């Protein structure tokens, strides 16, 4: 009885022992990798419109600042802010008293110069008559030489005095013209049809003229019929913006409406470089992003006011039926090239990049073509070390689904919109790629990582 029991126990414990041993061996030698949950999509074709978003203000296309050329007190200001004016309408009248007096003074001076010239003319005539008469006497030896020279000199002096009087008349006339000009400038009329968009001064205010100063800005007149959006674009995006490109504008004051526009001007220099020193005082300006002003003419008419905030979507480039992947699919990894150098004449995306290197280092080609892990000796060691550094350079990749794992494929990207990247090289239409979650693509996934397809979660899906 004891023997069958003992045999049974041996069998039972043997089976248990075998099972445990087998499981232990499996556990020790089986390679495990965490399964990363991902979402997938297929590479597809879409039409893309690359959009640059910029913010700015609405301003009139034509906007004139009215500043007086002469200084004085404003005695008439018949316009109000917001009033429409036409070309030639009186805008400002400055007290002309000083300038009237100056004009009168100039007139008196001019008349005096005229009188002086008349007197000089009469003197010259007398001197010439005396000279002519005494010259004849001198010729007959009836007049001494000294007396003759005296009459001659008197004539010359009279001539010179006439010339001086003429010059003085010209000077006086110029002074008179200048005084009259200054007087005229005390009345300012509108140079264009428009609206007084800003009125800075009032009647009684003393204003400075622009002759030797910056001048007081009395008012601004704007042509409200033609408005434009002046937006600031970053230096990375401005290179793609050109006059003629269309834009969709959204004005804060007119929500739920989009306005059409066209780019008319792209600044040649940044807003910072327009300051006299090249940059503004203090360190804060140097830390701000460099912006370029772009002007977009608004094609739609609306009750726009200068200074309204606007957001513009500028369509910089288009692609029709381009190969695309979702934005989240593209990330950067340090991807080592599969082969160091391709044999001459071989195809593949690596041929161009690597054969150039091979042309300058021919001895490396032989060593590298035999295997990716071969390290050539001697003088080629540095070339291989440089290649190793090249291989580690981060590049744009997309993860292609290969069964239960992924493969990191370097890609070349083109333009993008708010949903897709254009792929110009590296993928083919219909390939299944990883499109989410954000954490998996940006951090967890590597070439060869094992995956499982799952539902997107808020944490894994958000960028």
């Amino acid at each position, binding site marked *: 009885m004891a023997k069958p*029991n003992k045999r049974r*126990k041996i069998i039972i*414990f043997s089976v248990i022992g075998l099972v445990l041993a087998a499981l232990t061996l*499996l*556990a020790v030698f089986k390679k*495990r990798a965490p399964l990363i949950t991902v979402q997938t999509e297929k590479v597809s074709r879409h039409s893309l419109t690359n959009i640059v978003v910029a913010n700015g203000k609405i301003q009139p296309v034509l906007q004139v600042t009215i500043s007086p050329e002469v200084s004085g007190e404003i005695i008439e200001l018949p316009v109000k802010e917001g009033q429409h004016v036409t070309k030639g309408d009186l805008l400002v009248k400055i007290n002309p008293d000083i300038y009237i007096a100056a004009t009168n003074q100039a007139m008196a001076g001019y008349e005096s110069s005229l009188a002086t010239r008349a007197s000089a003319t009469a003197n010259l005539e007398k001197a010439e008559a005396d000279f002519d008469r005494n010259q004849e006497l001198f010729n007959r030896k009836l007049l001494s030489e000294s007396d003759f020279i005296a009459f001659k000199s008197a004539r010359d002096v009279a001539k010179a005095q006439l010339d001086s009087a003429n010059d003085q008349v010209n000077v006086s006339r110029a002074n008179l013209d200048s005084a009259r000009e200054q007087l005229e400038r005390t009345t300012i009329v509108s140079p264009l049809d428009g609206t007084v968009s800003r009125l800075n001064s009032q009647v009684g205010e003393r204003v400075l003229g622009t002759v030797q100063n910056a001048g007081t800005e009395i008012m601004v007149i704007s042509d409200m019929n033609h408005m434009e959006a002046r937006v600031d674009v970053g230096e990375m995006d401005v290179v793609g913006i050109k006059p003629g490109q269309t834009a969709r504008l959204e004005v804060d004051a007119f929500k739920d409406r989009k306005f059409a526009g066209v780019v008319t001007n792209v600044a040649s220099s940044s807003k910072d470089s327009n300051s006299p020193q090249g940059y503004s005082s203090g360190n804060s300006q140097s830390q701000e992003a460099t912006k370029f002003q772009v002007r977009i003419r608004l094609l739609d008419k609306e009750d726009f006011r200068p200074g309204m905030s606007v957001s513009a979507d500028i369509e910089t480039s288009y692609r029709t039926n381009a190969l695309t992947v979702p934005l989240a699919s593209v990330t950067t990894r340090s991807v080592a090239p599969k082969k160091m150098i391709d044999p001459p004449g071989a195809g593949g995306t690596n041929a161009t990049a690597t054969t150039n290197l091979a042309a300058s280092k021919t001895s490396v080609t032989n060593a590298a073509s035999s295997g990716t892990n071969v390290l050539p000796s001697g003088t080629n060691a540095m070339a291989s070390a440089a290649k190793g550094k090249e291989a580690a350079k981060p590049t744009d990749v997309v993860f292609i689904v290969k069964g239960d794992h992924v493969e990191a494929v370097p890609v070349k990207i083109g333009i993008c919109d708010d949903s897709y990247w254009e792929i110009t090289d590296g993928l083919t239409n219909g390939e299944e790629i990883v499109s989410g979650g954000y954490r998996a693509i940006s951090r967890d996934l590597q070439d060869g990582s094992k995956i499982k397809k799952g539902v997107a979660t*808020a944490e894994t899906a958000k960028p």
Partner: protein
Amino acid sequence: MDPVQPIPEPQSVTAPAPVNSLPGRLLNVIAAPGELFDEIKASPASVANWLVPVLLFAIIGVISVCIMFTQPAIQQTIRDQQVKALDKRVQQGKMTQAQEDQALQVMDKFMGPKMLAVFGSFGVVTNSFISVFWWALVLWLCGRWFLKARFDYLKAAEVAGLSSVIMTLGMVIGTLLCVIVGRLNAGPSLALLVTDFDLSNRVHLLLGAANAIYFWHTAILAIGLAKLSGASTARAMLVVFAYWVLIELLFIAVGLGQWTL
């Protein structure tokens, strides 16, 4: 006169089999549970009969927990489950996305593998003691109510304690399977067939409950009850298995199914 008949030798009463050593008892619960529980019934109460197996279960449990939480695949699974649970709360409006992000940061910082191993170890040690006394109570009540038998509670504890050796073996097997498969709930059960085990899925929990070790353990307990109560093994099996099935279904129904795994 008849010859004197020799006085018959008194028949020697078959003495019970010699009491096994403690290691022998621990092994016999696997190989010959009936004999073991006969021995337990006849012998005086012994604390070692339940304390040693419980301690063994606790130690093996701590080692298992430490091994499992060092596996990258299991850490990733736990992370995915945490994220999923928080996402559900966000979708239900019980917390905001910002609160979820904060909670995940706290989890990453304070609930890493080491902390999970600490908490898991504490849980397994506590569970080992509670489980034995709970099953002892169940056996004692089943014997009293259903089998109309009276036996000492400590005897039931000895039966439950020794039966926990099966659970210890199950824990070793389960840990090895978790490491091999790379999933947290990969025990010797039908849940091995499920690739994406979901703790909130009742079907998955039922499959997880269909565990060979649980069946074995329950059968051993039933044999122990039968020996202690003197009832038939079949009747004891019926009572104990009925209790086990009901408690499993109850836990799964009220959303506590993960505690049955």
